[in-house]
């Protein structure tokens, strides 16, 4: 059986700008998220396992949490292996995997157990990657700023050692959603649930925002140099 592969030709090469489910024409090679046992001897096992995924998805749709847990854990591990060297700078493998799993959960009922699992799953992975990249393009680019430069950009009294002002200036340069997340969790000391409630997002979404906010914040302060 030919390995079903998710290629990222345009995205990674900066070419066509789309992800295509192909196994060739891929600078840097395809992202394999299907099971790979390698060689002809393993093909039967791979087939069986792919069929098993469809069966586990069907059981998950009936409310079988154990089957669903196993499937998610397996997909998570494979995604991590596949995406590790394929993500763009600034993209986080934890965020991406988490977003894929959340998207899979939301779209769970649209899976048809009589059809192969991989095309359905690959479409979701492509969607998550493209959506994230589209969002990044729309947002203002965060520049990594040297601490000295940041102090220059901050009000005068910041140069006199007013760290709070420097931090505040850096916070002000974060995208609004991330800034609010960092403020609520780290400045106001709110719980994730309470912050999520206030922002009108899920606790998972709030964690993602905060995580991205921390990373951007560190970059702004020059800690990631």
């Amino acid at each position, binding site marked *: 059986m030919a390995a079903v592969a998710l290629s990222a030709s345009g995205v990674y090469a900066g070419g066509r700008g789309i992800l295509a489910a192909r196994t060739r024409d891929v600078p840097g090679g395809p992202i394999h998220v299907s099971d790979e046992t390698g060689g002809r001897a393993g093909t039967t096992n791979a087939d069986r396992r792919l069929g098993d995924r469809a069966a586990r998805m069907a059981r998950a749709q009936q409310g079988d949490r154990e089957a669903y847990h196993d499937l998610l854990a397996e997909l998570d591990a494979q995604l991590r292996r596949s995406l590790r060297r394929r993500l763009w700078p600034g993209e986080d493998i934890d965020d991406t995997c988490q977003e894929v799993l959340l998207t899979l959960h*939301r779209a769970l*009922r649209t899976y048809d157990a009589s059809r192969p699992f991989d095309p*359905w799953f690959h479409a979701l992975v492509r969607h998550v990657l493209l959506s994230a990249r589209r969002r990044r393009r729309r947002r203002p680019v965060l520049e990594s700023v040297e601490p000295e430069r940041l102090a220059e950009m901050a009000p005068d009294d910041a140069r006199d050692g007013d760290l709070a002002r420097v931090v505040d200036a850096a916070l002000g340069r974060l995208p609004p959603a991330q800034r609010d997340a960092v403020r609520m969790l780290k400045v106001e000391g709110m719980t994730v649930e309470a912050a999520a409630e206030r922002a009108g997002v899920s606790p998972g979404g709030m964690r993602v925002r905060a995580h991205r906010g921390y990373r951007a914040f560190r970059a702004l302060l020059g800690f990631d140099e």
Partner: protein
Amino acid sequence: MSAPVVDRLAAALDARRPYWSPARRFAIWALAQLAIVAIALRVRPDAIERLVHVRIALEVALLALLGASGAALALRAAVPGRHPGRALTIAAGTLAIGVAVTVLPDVTLAAVVPAGWPCAVKTLLLAAIPWLVLTVALVRGAVLLPLVAGLLAGIAPLAMAAALMRLLCGNDDGMHLLVWHDLPLALGVAASVAVGAWLFVGWARRRV
């Protein structure tokens, strides 16, 4: 690791009725569409006689084909991995252009635009229920291309309505057809795209 996420998602799982297949939903849509055609032709049985004109029959057939293929593609757009690929979208686009070229009325600019607004209203009314059926189906699915889905969900019922109106309306004046039949179709499709962009992404924001 996403172990906490995996644990949380597994704990949040509840039994869900699988999404009906696109074929099943298409059958429901086709039933709704046929019911509307049957009611319209029952009210105006003479309308069917217009099919003896070859040009009108061809226009109606092309519009009906466009409507049916649009609905089929729109419903596939609600299922990840089955959404219309580039080839299918190009085929549908080519068909739409073919329909436009064939149906485009012979407009004379000197013609006076009569007060044909009832035709526009009827076109939109005839399309309303099939559009709702498609929209509900798409909202319940997981649409990955909301603009394309909105476009197809608009084209399908409005093309069918336009086909029906071609039979129900006895006015074959080019300007009348352009202004009161084709323009509402175009505006309705544009509105459907806008609604789709807003409505069909709701599944991705659902709280887990």
